[in-house]
């Protein structure tokens, strides 16, 4: 009861639209809980939360009943590395861009959100790009399509920041391949990348010390001018204090070890290694540091540092005890992460649950939101996907997607609306093309 009271205060306010009949039962479903095995039965949802999961669930009077028709229900997919839904990805002009963040540029109307939903994704980690050794802050969002920015941000998700090693940050500020872009910046080498990280954290420690010194002296009654608040160093201080996660883009085993050593030396943790294609070579060291790994199933060879990759990477790291997830880093790949997970069954022999964990509970743990999402368990957010076939099958198609118990994607609705939308689009396009034709003598404004 107490919990319900809390919920009605926190959750119902933004979702008042469905509060009146907030009780939903999904029945006749093959339920893949990921953490508690699989069963045939029903899921009771109230006020956006999963209340009960079992072979027989009492549907309260007035509850909305959805018959899954024997189809599969799994937890909403979580993508630990995405760049959709943001109007900016990289601030490449500086080698440390920690003052920036995707939270400032969230675009809740990016069609990528809807397309991700159609692929069963309900939560994603929207990261800064990899142009800088230390990049910008990230934001975790739920795919609440149709809502404004504050309502799609995953409330209470741990803040994070992007790091990047190797080829991307040493490209020196977006210098293009043809050499025409002549604006270059430090660093240009892997050792330079390490130096940038070391220097930034040295600065951050000095900044923190100056703030502490100021506070201590003011407390003693000294009259001092307050030091400048530095938005570049502040997030790094948070990293040092364990209040902000580091998500580090990396490929090669040597640079992975470099970063882990630098982090150990400065006293902070790498929360996730992103891409980490050579992680299988140093899985023991990754495990010892306590870092998670978020990798691709078999996307490789797109640059030199991505050549020594194997499709067994995820499975091998998992078997060494590393917390592994599969991510997309792409608006397209994001729409079939279930198939990406399936590849680990073929390459590495993971069980179905282990494979599904790579795109659900594991990324949830990496983002420290596993108390809320990532599996089908009572108390968790009702973020669910209904597939017509087993989600690890190539033939599985998403039928419905729920976030907080509300339907955000429905395949039938989508198909039914297509004709009308196409018609409206055609009419507008023709009208505007006609209006844009040069009139009369074709004279243009001076």
């Amino acid at each position, binding site marked *: 009861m107490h919990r319900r009271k809390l919920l009605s205060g926190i959750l119902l306010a933004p979702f008042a639209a469905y509060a009146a009949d907030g009780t939903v039962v999904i029945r006749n479903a093959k339920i893949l809980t990921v953490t508690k095995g699989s069963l045939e039965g029903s899921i009771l949802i109230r006020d956006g939360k999963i209340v009960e999961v079992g072979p027989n669930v009492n549907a309260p009077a007035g509850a909305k009943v959805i018959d899954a028709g024997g189809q599969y229900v799994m937890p909403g997919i979580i993508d630990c590395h995405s760049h959709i839904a*943001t*109007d*900016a*990805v*990289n*601030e*490449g*002009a*500086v*080698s*440390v*861009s920690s*003052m*920036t*963040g*995707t939270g*400032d*540029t969230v*675009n*809740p*109307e990016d*069609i990528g959100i809807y397309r991700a939903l159609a692929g069963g994704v309900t939560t994603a980690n929207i990261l*800064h790009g990899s142009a800088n050794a230390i990049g*910008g802050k990230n934001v975790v969002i739920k795919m609440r399509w149709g809502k*404004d*920015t*504050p309502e799609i941000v995953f409330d209470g998700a741990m803040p994070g920041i992007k790091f990047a090693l190797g080829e991307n940050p040493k490209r020196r*500020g*977006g210098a293009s391949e*043809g*050499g*025409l*872009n*002549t*604006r*270059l*910046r*430090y660093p*240009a080498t892997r050792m330079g990348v390490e130096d940038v990280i070391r220097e930034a954290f040295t600065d951050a420690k000095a900044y923190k010390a100056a703030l502490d010194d100021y506070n201590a002296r003011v407390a003693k009654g000294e*009259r*001092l*001018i*307050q030091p*400048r*608040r*530095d*938005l*570049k160093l502040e997030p790094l201080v948070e990293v040092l204090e364990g209040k902000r996660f580091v998500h580090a883009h990396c490929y090669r085993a040597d640079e992975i070890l470099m970063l882990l050593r630098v982090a150990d030396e400065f006293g902070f943790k790498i929360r996730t290694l992103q891409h980490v294609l050579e992680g299988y070579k140093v899985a023991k060291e990754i495990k010892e540091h306590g870092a998670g790994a978020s990798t691709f199933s078999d996307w490789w060879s797109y640059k030199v540092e991505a050549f020594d990759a194997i499709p067994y990477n995820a499975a091998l790291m998992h078997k060494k005890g590393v917390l592994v997830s599969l991510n997309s880093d792409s608006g397209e790949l994001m729409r079939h992460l279930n198939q990406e997970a399936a590849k680990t069954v073929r390459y590495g022999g993971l069980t179905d649950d282990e494979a599904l964990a790579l795109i659900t509970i594991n990324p949830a743990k990496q983002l420290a939101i596993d108390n809320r999402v990532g599996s089908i368990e009572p108390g968790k957010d009702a973020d669910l996907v209904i597939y017509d076939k087993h989600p690890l099958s190539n033939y599985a198609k998403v039928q419905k997607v729920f976030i907080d118990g509300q339907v955000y994607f429905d395949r039938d609705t989508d198909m039914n609306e297509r004709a009308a*939308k196409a018609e*409206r*689009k055609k009419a*507008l*396009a023709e*009208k*505007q*093309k006609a209006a*844009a034709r*040069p009139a009369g003598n074709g004279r243009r*404004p*001076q």
Partner: protein
Amino acid sequence: MKRRHLLLAAAGAFAYGQTGSPGFYAIQNAMIHPASGPAIPNGTIVVRNGLIEAVGPSVPVPAGAWTIDGKGLHVYPGLIDALSTWGLPAAAPAAARPATPAADAPTGRRRGGGDETPANVQFLDDGGPEDRPSNTSWLKAGDLVQPADATLTAARNAGFTTAIVFPSTGVFAGQGSAVNLSGGRAGDMVVGSPVGQYVTLPTRSTAGFPASLMGSIAYVRQIYIDAEQYKAAKAMYAQNARGLQRPAYDRALEGVLESPRILLPATRKVDIDRMIRFGKELKIPVVLYGGAEAWRAADSLKASGVPILLNLKWPEHDRDGDPDAVESLRTLETRELAPSGAAALSKAGVRFAFYTTGLERPADVRRAVKRAVDAGLSNEEALRAMTLGAAEIYGVDDRLGSLENGKIANLFVTDGDWLAERTNVKMVFVDGKKFEPAPAPAGRAE
């Protein structure tokens, strides 16, 4: 009296549309549109010493005034372009920023070893917000305006008497001034200054930080944080300098602190919502500019109380674009519905004004306003959006924007409804000084 009137008209015809003015006029029997209230048929308006001395249905004509028979004429407050660069020297970005390499520069200039640096390469200094890049916040448009600029005459001939002009280069471009479009010296033209800081949020740059939307936002945020700290430090130092380290003088922060409001770009609904939140965070009054999607953002704007300047250059189909390009429904709808934004804002009670950037001919301005009227805006509201509405947003409505006693005598006189195709501007008064536009060439009313 009659003879003096005739003389005046004759003088006008021979002196490039301008008369020697005694500065004391009465326009009788005209349809007066005060913008601050309902139209006055057969009204009289008295202008003396640059101010409106009286306006109303039964105002006696004072002795000694030059009377103008207003039969068949309409009198409107002088139009205000709410965001303009009229009369300012052309921006010279080449001088302020290093030139980007020519697009036709020969490729393959990087001979020899990979790290040989071509002669034209400039290394970024990796400067961040602390280096105040792209910042001329201290510039005041009123100091830069050139009274002899031909654009001022052209605008005046179309009924404009005031422009809110801003420097336009850089993230912090500088401070705006309300200037009347006539005067011997720049100082004579300035009606209010500074009226705000013009901020752009570049999404790319080849000249260093910020080179992305996220960098631009982070930069603006840091500048306002620095400005607050600077203000507090200066106050502390002014109170008692003994024993305190002197805060370094910072003209970039001086310029920001001088500005009573900030102008932020917002074209789409996403931008509008984002900038409303950003303005709240900066704790400074915000005026948005752009507004192509204001038609679907009226509620957000109303709730926030933030005013918006609408660009009269409504989005158009690109005549030179790929005729087979498939545009999104959202793009098509915005193009269709952008001109209805003004009516939506008016209905919701949002403060808004028009600006003409991108429209070069007076006839284009009139047609653009007409489109807003055709999409539901009343004639009165349209006039208000180009007069009193703009004055209110910039806090100069105590002196400008309507035909009311004691306000600056800025007005224009036409031979018909100002939005009608064939209407001619007969007279324009700026600071009580009368101008008569040269008659339009026969056959075309432009």
